[in-house]
């Protein structure tokens, strides 16, 4: 019951956030009615054309009413039509989302074990050579912007060594080889940060009295790390991984644009470039859902891992 109430409250908050987000996005993109018309009709369209277009599309109604109307449509699954792609947005977005989920999922699949392993290895022995190495790796990789990383890797692996394909359009269906570079960029961009988080968490946990208790019980170092420290040390990274999702999503946009990967990121980018207002709105809403849902998942994961929070 308590869990249900907690979950209910969280989901309520999620919906409220979504509502606020939709209002903000709508406000940002559509409060200036004339600008909407200009974006759709081109900035050198005549005032008459704009007025006619606005009338036809119900823009003579007050902002709040338009917002509610849009919200109603959105909630009922009618997300409008993309002005750029000339297609129903729902139909347009779903395969793109799947493609991006694949990319982000693959990146997480590599990134999570790698960063946890690095973080643990360096956190167990703070100050060791491994630790310094990992720290250096982390600080270097997190300092290189995604696009620069992508450029470097392309130069090396595509143009230099010729090992990997330089674009990831998946034109001929799914291709693992095409996934390698985008995933590599995402992994390199985030692993360092996650590893550092894991390391900090590990160091903190290794200083806890119960680790000493385990030591004094006669437990071996490996047992101390894996049985006693790990689960407690994972609390922070797991949350951080979930909270990394918005960050990864941002990286996904850059990487998708760079490698022409046909995912959600390029869709949003094209929509933004071409002022496809409805599509931008839909994409923004979806990315916010992804973020908020990941936060919810983070909470759930945290509760699942930490018995202290269970049943409270």
């Amino acid at each position, binding site marked *: 019951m308590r869990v249900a109430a907690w979950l209910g409250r969280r989901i309520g908050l999620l919906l*409220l*956030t979504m509502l*606020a*987000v939709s209002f*903000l*996005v709508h406000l*940002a*993109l559509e409060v200036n009615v004339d600008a909407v018309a200009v974006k759709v009709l081109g900035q050198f369209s005549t005032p008459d054309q704009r007025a006619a277009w606005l009338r036809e599309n119900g823009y003579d109604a007050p902002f709040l009413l338009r917002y509610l109307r849009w919200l109603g449509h959105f909630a009922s699954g009618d997300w409008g039509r993309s002005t750029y792609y000339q297609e129903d947005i729902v139909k347009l977005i779903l395969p793109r989302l799947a493609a991006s989920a694949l990319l982000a999922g693959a990146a997480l699949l590599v990134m999570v074990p790698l960063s946890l392993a690095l973080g643990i290895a360096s956190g167990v022995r703070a100050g060791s050579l491994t630790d310094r190495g990992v*720290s250096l790796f982390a*600080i*270097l990789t*997190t*300092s*290189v*912007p*995604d*696009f*620069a990383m992508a*450029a*470097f890797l392309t*130069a090396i692996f595509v*143009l230099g060594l010729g090992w990997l394909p330089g674009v990831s359009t998946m034109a001929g269906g799914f291709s693992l080889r095409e996934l390698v570079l985008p995933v590599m960029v995402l992994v390199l961009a985030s692993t360092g940060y996650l590893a550092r988080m894991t390391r900090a968490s590990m160091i903190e946990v290794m200083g806890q009295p119960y680790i000493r208790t385990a030591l004094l019980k006669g437990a071996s170092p490996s047992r101390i790390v894996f049985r006693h420290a790990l689960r407690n040390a994972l609390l922070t990274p797991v949350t951080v991984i979930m909270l990394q*999702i*918005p*960050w990864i*999503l*941002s990286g996904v*946009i*850059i990487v998708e*644009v760079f490698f022409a990967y046909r995912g959600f990121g390029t869709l*949003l*980018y094209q929509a*933004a*470039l071409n*002022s496809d*207002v409805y599509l*931008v709105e839909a*994409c*923004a809403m979806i*990315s*916010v859902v*992804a*973020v*908020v849902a990941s*936060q919810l998942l983070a909470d759930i994961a945290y509760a699942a891992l930490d018995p202290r929070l269970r049943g409270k």
Partner: protein
Amino acid sequence: MKRPPALVIGVAIVALWLLVAVFAPVIAPHDPLVSFKPLLRPGAAAFPLGTDLLGRDILSRLIWGARPVIFLSLAATLIAYIIGVGAGLLAGYRRGVLDAGFSFIANVILSFPVLVLYLVVIVALGPSYLNVVIAVTFGSAPAVFRIVRAIAIDIAGRDYIAAAVTQGEPTWRILLIEILPNAAPALAVDFCLRLGYSAIIIGSLGFLGLGLPPPAPDWGGMVTDGRALAFAFPHLVIFPCIAISSLVLALSLIADGLREARQ
């Protein structure tokens, strides 16, 4: 206080870039907007880092390019800090409805993936210097708010704050004199990281073609401009990449050094 080497190196690099940015007109050997001879490789005496496709001196463009990157990220970060620190201190100390309201707004903004937020802001406002600053500020302020709020909540529970209350200290003094200085070390770390992060974002916007309009020498834009030629003329991409990475790296080093020095 012992100075960690990371801090020293970081400060040195950042100071160097700051000097470069401030004294760009004096240092830059050429006008960054004037074409000379195209695609010279690095090494020529007049153009030590070579020239770009349009024959502009890369060194001068890097030097001038330090300005927008540093000043825009600095401006954006500072404004974000003013907003975030003010709201965070108040919310964390006062709690209650104010806190709930601020926190909700921060949550809403933070539920946008950063780049999505910037795209929406830039789409709504169009790309320009000012709008880049607005976009980055808009994204950073809630994050700063969250950090400051957490610190303020923590410090507000300390006994010395209770002592100040029992002495009848006015709220603004409690916020600015009792709480803020204690949050400063953590904020200094975050400030450096955020500054670097803003630089990355400004570069990324440039990469996406949403940054500064040409022909402004902007590091991200230089990378994009040179990308197609990078295979034959790697210097077009490598130098701006090194510039932005070194700046961000230096800021991370400072953050790291500060963190280390604090422990």
